[in-house]
């Protein structure tokens, strides 16, 4: 039942030193956990178990509490972002135009779930709220590339372009 990390942790000594100095700055403050998590996510890009454990030990807070806070706020991420960030809009307009099917297709092609990242670090998948391009519904983006008025059948060909 435990969530296994798909991507091996690649934190550097420099990142760790940065995190330790952040923890030292906040250590004795009330409510230190959230500011430390914010800065930790800036340093590492995400908050894997290794980072959360350092924070728990550093602040003297149970790991379960750290994890509880991380999973409460959508802003905190447990997974790294991929080289290609696929983001499917699930805003109302896109959703009624079938973006749910597009998301399912991407899950099938990448083998990952929403908020996941492929083991090679290449693709990550997000479901976003309205991105303001309703005229193009259904819309998704891969990094800076925007794709609109697509159907689930178009996805394999588009996906193939990023698989070199």
């Amino acid at each position, binding site marked *: *039942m*435990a*969530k296994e990390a798909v991507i091996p942790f690649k934190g550097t000594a420099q990142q760790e030193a940065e995190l330790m100095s952040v923890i030292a700055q906040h250590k004795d403050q009330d409510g230190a956990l959230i500011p430390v998590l914010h800065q930790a996510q800036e340093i590492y890009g995400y908050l894997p*178990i290794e980072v*959360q*454990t350092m924070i*728990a*030990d550093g602040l003297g*807070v*149970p*790991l*379960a*509490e*750290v*994890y*509880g806070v991380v*999973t*409460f*706020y959508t802003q905190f991420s447990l997974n790294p972002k991929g080289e290609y960030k696929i983001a499917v809009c699930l805003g109302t307009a896109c959703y009624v135009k079938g973006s749910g099917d597009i998301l399912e297709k991407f899950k099938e092609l990448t083998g990952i779930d929403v908020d996941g990242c492929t083991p090679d670090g290449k693709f990550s998948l997000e479901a976003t709220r309205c991105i303001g391009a309703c005229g193009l519904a259904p819309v998704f983006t891969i990094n800076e590339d925007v794709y609109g008025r697509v159907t689930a059948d178009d996805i394999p060909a588009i996906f193939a372009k990023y698989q070199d």
Partner: protein
Amino acid sequence: MVNLKINGQDVTVPAGTTVLEAARTAGIDIPTLCYLKDVSQTGSCRMCLVEIKGGRALQAACVYPVAEGLEVYTNTPAVRNARKVVLELILSNHDRKCLTCERNRNCELQTLADELGVTEIHYEGVRNEYDVDQLSPSIVRDNNKCILCRRCVNMCKNIQTVGAIDAIDRGFKTSIGCAFEKSLGEVSCVNCGQCIAVCPVGALREKDATDDVWAALANPDKHVVVQAAPAVRAALGEEFGYEMGTPVTGKMAAALRRLGFDKVFDTDFAADLTIMEEGTELLHRIQNGGVLPMITSCSPGWIKFCEHNFPEMLENLSSCKSPHEMYGAVIKSYYAEKAGIDPKNIFVVSVMPCTAKKYEAQREELGVNGLQDVDSVLTTRELAKMIKEAGIRFTELPDEVFDDPFGEAATGAGVIFGATGGVMEAAIRTVADILDNTSHSEVEYEAVRGLEGIKLASVEAGGKTIRAAVAHGLGNARELLNKVKSGEVEVDFIEIMGCPGGCVNGGGQPIVSSKDRMDKDIRAERAKALYSEDKNLPLRKSHDNPFIKKLYEEYFEEPGSHKAHNLLHTHYVARDKH
């Protein structure tokens, strides 16, 4: 004092009292779920809503402080309706298989549905479904039954300072669990089972061992031996309608015999044995410059807590196995020899007030010659279930005694092991006699009794001062050890029990509802049963137990001998903090 009116009735209570408590003193019940005296007071479940005159909205009585002139109404149409809606919403996402639930007829949610007259649930909708976490050898978590009251979280995090569980995710997806959704069996959970004791519903229970025990009892090739810990007799009666604090020692022995156990032994005997070994170890450490303070090792929840959180203090732990493990080892060696039974065919069952003992019994170092000392551990609750299932009319049983060769000659020292300070007091009774080379007539050491979180005492014996400390509940244990590490507290001997109040309030004891917890202190009531039994026993010191003397004469030679070390002592392992 503050004067207020509840439902038109004048009530006077001390300042700082909540409306909930004030109503209780006035004979008015307000329903609660998330509230638990001394543990959880968050006002989150909204069951205890009341009307306050002049207030804008209904208020949660469990967190609303009384004020002079306050007018409270607990039984208006708006209040009744709001509570019913709240309860129906909780029930709408609840796995309502009450008939087959562990807590059937002993569930605060079920009781409320009955009391509030919920006959229909108007909010059928999506229901969360969860896998049941069964990996821990002690505790099963079934989130399909969880109502997110967080009593377990508050107990684990704030009272025990273990912090193995917390609320994960948010909104409808919120669940209670461990970091990274690991199992309780994979984290720093110490198996104390206090989460089970405070759960209002069936979301937490012990890992059931009754099937294994029934199977052993039905197996003609097995010689099935049972032992019962001191604290069990102080609480088992509650399952059969006895007032809390009524000792049922004789009926318990009779019931165990009628369940079909071949021998019924008393863990008290092993408690006496523990005192002989532990007392000797303490004297040895004091006289030979060994590691001090020495800390007791009877409580397996405490031991695992120490291994995770104070790995640098493992040398301070007494090397003694816990009493029931010692007994298991003696049964499979001395007793097996004496009775002419191959130890492989002996099945040792321990009835314990404790869920951590289930984990302990599986520790591989707690065995000799490839046989575990103890084969199966039942909680007090599981024993009660077996007695009921077997159709034994407990209240009608005669009082019987325990079996030879260890006999009924347990001492008062062994009995008080079940209450906080009891091991310390028992040890002092023996150590003082040995050091002074006499038999002291004064045997009651009040300083180590009672429910203060950390107790300090010193005893003069043999021209020495032995400084002692007692802590119960792991939050208190953590505080005491931090003080020992910083030098603020300097002592020679420490007793630590993992559960608040000691074993009488163990995680395997009968469940006490939040309402009953408002009216009485479980820890004090059950401890009374043990102290009264101690007072009435002819022998009150472990070293006076004639069967203990015989065991040393015939088998172990002397406390701390090579043979004793082989069978009665153990070692510990440092574990990861998380």
